[in-house]
């Protein structure tokens, strides 16, 4: 089974994020960048399918050259190959543009399953997977929390976490899946894996290599534009309720009823 996993490099969610003074982006000085956590789960899902059915796991990413580090993490986890599309003409591309670039790469690769994280933790758009399925003409199942591939590897039954319950969906392969973090527990890259990943070549492609132009996928083609980033408002200081337990409970009840209006 040939599996393609899409990977994005994002700021570590535990690191403090600073926005550039003009609001056009994130200040990258001193920022820790990691593989999007959801993509770790997607990589793990791919590796488990390979362990079950044989075949290969190929990672694909679109981003600046530094995104190689995120691919290196996936290779150290055990993926076979990695491709990065890096082109300055992609600055300002929107999600649909990025999905078209990913689709162009994946069309050149054998793929029985394409796996993405449900969303990336930097912009929370959850758009790439769905758009990519459309561009590739594949059936899709998003937000997969449980994955069961039939013994012949011809399709899967998946559980999707939906409001108030679970939706069970069957998809024939080749298909595109986007995965929840509850799907699996990603493995740590092993030390031998890290040493092997060091020796693997990460193929870097430009738009030209893919037969695409900036006019088709770059900022000129973008249907959305980032207007401004702004930090969330500073959290207001909490209120400390003084007094003995009885008085404090009464004060908190009054607050919940009259001010917060949750009781």
């Amino acid at each position, binding site marked *: 089974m040939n599996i393609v996993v899409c990977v994005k490099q994002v700021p570590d969610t535990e690191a403090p994020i600073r926005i550039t003074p003009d609001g056009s982006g994130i200040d990258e000085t001193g920022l820790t960048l990691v593989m999007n956590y959801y993509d770790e789960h997607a990589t793990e899902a791919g590796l488990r399918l390979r362990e079950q059915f044989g075949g290969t796991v190929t990672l694909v990413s679109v981003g600046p050259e530094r995104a190689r*580090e995120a691919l*290196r993490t996936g290779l*150290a986890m055990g993926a076979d190959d990695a491709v990065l599309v890096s082109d300055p003409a992609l600055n300002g591309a929107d999600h649909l543009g990025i999905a078209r670039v990913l689709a162009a790469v994946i069309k050149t690769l054998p793929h029985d399953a394409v796996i993405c994280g449900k969303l990336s933790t930097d912009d929370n758009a959850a758009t790439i997977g769905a758009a990519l399925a459309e561009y590739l003409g594949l059936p899709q199942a998003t937000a997969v929390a449980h994955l069961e591939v039939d013994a012949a590897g011809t399709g899967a039954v998946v559980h999707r976490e939906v409001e108030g319950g679970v939706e069970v969906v069957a998809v024939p392969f080749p298909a595109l899946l986007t995965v929840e973090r509850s799907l699996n527990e990603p493995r*740590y*890259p092993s*030390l031998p894996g890290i040493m092997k990943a*060091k020796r693997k070549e990460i193929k870097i492609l430009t738009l030209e290599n893919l037969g695409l132009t900036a006019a088709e996928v770059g900022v000129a083609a973008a249907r959305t534009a980032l207007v401004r980033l702004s930090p969330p408002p500073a959290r207001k200081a909490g209120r400390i309720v003084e007094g003995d337990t009885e008085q404090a409970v009464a004060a908190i009840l009054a607050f919940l009823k009259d001010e917060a209006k949750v009781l």
Partner: protein
Amino acid sequence: MDFQLTDEHRMIQATVREFATREILPRAAALDHSPTFPAEIIQKAAALGLMGMMVPERFGGAGVDAVSYVLVQEELARASAGVQTIITVNNSLVCDPIAHFGTEEQKRRYLPRLCSGASLGCYCLTEPAYGSDAMSLQTSARRDGGEWVLRGTKIFVTNGVEADICIAYARAGPEPGARGISAFIVEKRFPGISVGKVEKKLGIKCSSTAEIVLDDCRVPASNLLGEPGTGGKIALSTLDGGRLGIAAQAVGIARAALEEATAYAASRQQFGRSIGEFQAIQWMLADMATRTDAARLLMLRAAYLRQQGTRYTREASMAKLFASETAMWTTHKAIQIFGGYGYIQDYPVERYFRDAKITEIYEGTSEVQRLVIARHVLGKNVIGDA
């Protein structure tokens, strides 16, 4: 001069930091309060390639360099010095001498098991009457046909209870001192070897420390490690590597104490402000940070020399000496910053303090390290070659 770690060093460090923080740290206090061998953690560590880190990949090891090794040991010890002890002994004192001095057949038979976590190793050098004076050891080895017969008692053997593969030193020839000593790979299943008294310790409690009794233990001749009479050389060269592991352990403990004390100083309020605003506390933290960094630099220098293939005995001793005394000093200060809370078991700093002490003792006491260093400073002409 380039002070940068490579991309691989940083990736290995980050991976093991996350592993240690998620898999070891949450269990460290319980493993200290009610000591049990952390079998599950050791199996997970083996899956990551941490049990035979510098062993070549063709023998099942991770094939990483000595700088990676000390970076990993620091991360493990920062989470639990007890867990790290188990791992560093398997690496430095068991895998290393087999990888360096073993025959092809010995490497093939023992290294894959030791690296995969199927086996665990221990190192039997110290005897009741011979600690720092290890080269006078009296365990005997007598040749009997195709076997060696070992007789004697070894003590303070880390992993002694759980290990199934032991590196044991015994006197196989009439020559006095180091020249009469040979090294052997002894399996626990061989007849005549047994575990004696199991020690109760001040710290590093989840690692076992046991007496190993060799009562006419019969060892196949093919399990002699290196040439007859080279055991002393093997023991000392192995300890150079071991001291890197202990230096890293001490750096990890010192860092843990510094991290805890820093967080506490920022949050603990007295006299209407955080205690970190008082200069008395600031100076302690500044000294703790400076000494910890200095210890780490000595550790990295020794590891760097090892991977260059240069002799690093002096540098390994300096790193081990300075790092262990730094761990002791830093954990002592951490308790002071915590005050009464530092003295009770609800916080980890008293554990760091107890764990730190062993680093000044095992794999050569601070006094032995100074002896080794002084010998390099003064030269053999002044104090002779012991």
